[in-house]
């Protein structure tokens, strides 16, 4: 194998894992490899992927955001409440729903950057606060989403699901931010060596605000997509999704110690999780075994990637 090919493989270990998984599933189930099923996988990956794109920013800086699932629910509930219950025009309600997500992210960042709380603790607190507020606002019951926004959960031209489009757009935005902007490059530097970044004049605290605000904003988008698919915002939606998001980011080749990670890798990581869940349904694997299989695949995907990197060094 040439050095170049080996280099490509070590960068894209997750993609290899995805292909292997897809080939295995198409051999095991004749229903897997059809356009409609693959689009289903895309739709089912969308919410996790969007959350995970946001988490990618945070993980690249060496942080962690446990609050994304709760923030997603809070944003969607806020939107639905303002629009359906309070009668605000839907564009304004949507904007405010997104703003709530960003605000939660800023609150996280303020605690981390200025309050010097470890990200794990700050976002753990937000996990509870955002979920609680979602329950307070909704009084524990689902709220119908405005019809105009619910189209986000539909398909266009009869077959192309909007959640997939939203996922792709958010993915491109994430990639552009990471590769082309000051904030993105600063995130890598901060995650790689925060002190070196600071001594090189990078505004570390301000960049943390940007990072967590982006994570909150992406969570809000994910929450709105999720609620649109059901046409209903649910206070308990997306509970536990933060762990899926983190898993997707790590499967995609990011390092929890910071400095490494790519939007494309995260995308592949989210697809792996969705393909796996889809495949387990198609194969009618029993409820108890599904959790075992998912856990094993997560461990394997990261393990293979780690070993590959180690052998490349």
């Amino acid at each position: 194998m040439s050095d170049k090919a080996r280099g490509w493989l070590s960068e894209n270990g997750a993609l290899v894992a995805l292909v292997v998984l897809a080939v295995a599933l198409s051999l095991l189930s004749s229903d897997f490899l059809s356009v409609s099923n693959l689009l289903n996988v895309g739709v089912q990956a969308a919410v996790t992927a969007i959350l995970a794109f946001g988490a990618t920013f945070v993980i690249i800086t060496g942080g962690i955001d446990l609050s994304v699932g709760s923030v997603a629910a809070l944003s969607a509930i806020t939107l639905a409440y303002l629009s359906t219950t309070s009668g605000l025009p839907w564009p304004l309600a949507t904007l405010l729903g997104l703003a709530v997500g960003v605000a939660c992210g800023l609150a996280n960042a303020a605690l981390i950057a200025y309050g010097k709380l470890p990200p794990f603790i700050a976002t753990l607190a937000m996990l509870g606060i955002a979920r609680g507020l979602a329950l307070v606002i909704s009084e524990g019951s689902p709220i119908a989403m405005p019809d105009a926004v619910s189209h986000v959960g539909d398909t266009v031209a009869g077959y192309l699901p909007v959640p997939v489009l939203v996922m792709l757009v958010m993915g491109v935005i994430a990639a552009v931010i990471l590769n082309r902007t000051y904030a993105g490059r600063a995130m890598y530097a901060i995650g790689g060596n925060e002190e070196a970044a600071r001594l090189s004049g990078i505004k570390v605290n301000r960049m943390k605000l940007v990072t967590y605000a982006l994570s909150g904003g992406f969570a809000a988008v994910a929450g709105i997509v999720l609620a649109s698919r059901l046409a209903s915002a649910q206070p308990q939606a997306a509970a536990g999704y933060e762990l899926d998001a983190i898993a997707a980011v790590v499967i995609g080749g990011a390092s929890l110690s910071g400095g490494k990670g790519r939007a494309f890798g995260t995308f592949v990581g989210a697809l792996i999780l969705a393909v796996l869940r889809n495949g387990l349904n198609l194969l009618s694997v029993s409820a108890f075994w599904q959790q075992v299989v998912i856990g094993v695949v997560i461990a394997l995907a990261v393990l293979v990637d780690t070993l590959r990197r180690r052998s490349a060094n």
Partner: protein
Amino acid sequence: MSQEILRVEGLRKRFPGVLALDGVDLALRTGEVHVLLGENGAGKSTLIKMLSGAYHPDEGRILLDGRPVDIRTAGDAQRLGIATIYQEFNLVPDLTVGENLSLGRPPRRFGFVDVKAMHDKARELLDRVGLDVDPRTRIGALGIARMQMVEIAKALALDARVLIMDEPTAVLTTSEVDRLFAIVRQLRDNGVAVVFITHHLEEIAQIGDTVTVLRDGRSVAEVPADTPQDELVRLMVGRPIDQQYPREAEPPGRPLLKVEGLTRRGAFEDVSFEVRAGEVVGLAGLVGAGRTELARAIFGADRYDEGEVTVGDRRLPRGDIDAAMEAGLGLVPEDRKGQGLVLGADIAENLGLVTLGRASRAGFVDRTGQRKAAAKVAAQLGVRMSGLEQEVRTLSGGNQQKVVIGKWLLADVRVLVLDEPTRGIDVGAKVEIYQLINSLTASGDAVLMISSDLPEVIGMSDRVLVMARGRLVGELPADEATQDAVMALAVTEVEGTRVR
């Protein structure tokens, strides 16, 4: 009297993109101190990592007592009696000295750790290296020199027959070095074969018996330790170096950096000086004299209590790196890996770090422009690399330091503060960095250089400032600065100081 214990033949090791070792031979005898000499990147680290089981050779063999051995893990090396003391110590800071000395195999009684036996054993080992500390002391509470003694004691605990020491003197003071040498000699006389790596040429004749010189992954010569330094340098670099300190002084211009009455309680007090355009001002003193703290405060990385810093005509606000950079100040920190570089990022990324903000428009970075600039400066500095996308982690120390300096060159600094700019860097790369300093001052910039390497401070500075216990205690022009004169000032007792 001495017989061969370890022999290395034709070792080769390839990493992706680099041939790290390209045929190394080494013969080690009992009761000798064998110095490994070579520039950074010559293959010394790779070689010792193979002897200690961290890497496995692609080709060649290692013979111990004449029998080929296969060293796959650190455990293998231990069993064979090969102990290695790396620059980054292998100690657990939160455990005690005694626990560290019996790490992994504590003496046991009825399934419990036998604390008394553990401490007795530790005390005996510590006696052998002449270290007088209580085995119950936490490692983290020891200074670097004493930690190193504990490392040596640990090697003794393993009954090491071959002891490899990677730059053990790099972090020690003169008196500590003397102590270390005494212990090494004692070990040697007891029949231990010592492999000793150092960049300090003057140490070779003091401690060494034989020298093997590595260059570009090959062993190029085995010579006696009393070989003249010039000859050693020639072997190491492959060409003669005319001048170790090629300072070309310029007539100084107007003051660029002015520091007045700067005080941070507990670190430094009432420090005033100025650095003029075209000048290199050296800042000498003992470790702990407050030089690094002063440099960080000037740059805005830390706050200070009183005084002011002016760059050009601009008075800098306290603790504001942004303003300092804006005014044209740059800092090359003392801890290259911990504070200077993003080790996991590539060369281009690191070189572009300081200019990231300047290369951004509406938040978007001009990455093509950044890359071009990085390529230019990397070529100008002569960074030895496989390409701009090489991770800086894999560069040698000298090349890493060039990258740290390079990022400031890209930012057009007017005053560059260098904190220990050549620590752990080999002779050839040192001279290149000195030439960089020359070219900075030639174009009218100013340099403030902190260094604990006395010949360097004296050889490269136009003026030498000396700090002791947080205060500036003297200033010597280049022609009056001798090692004795600087040291005399550096050990000055300062009256009435609050600094400890």
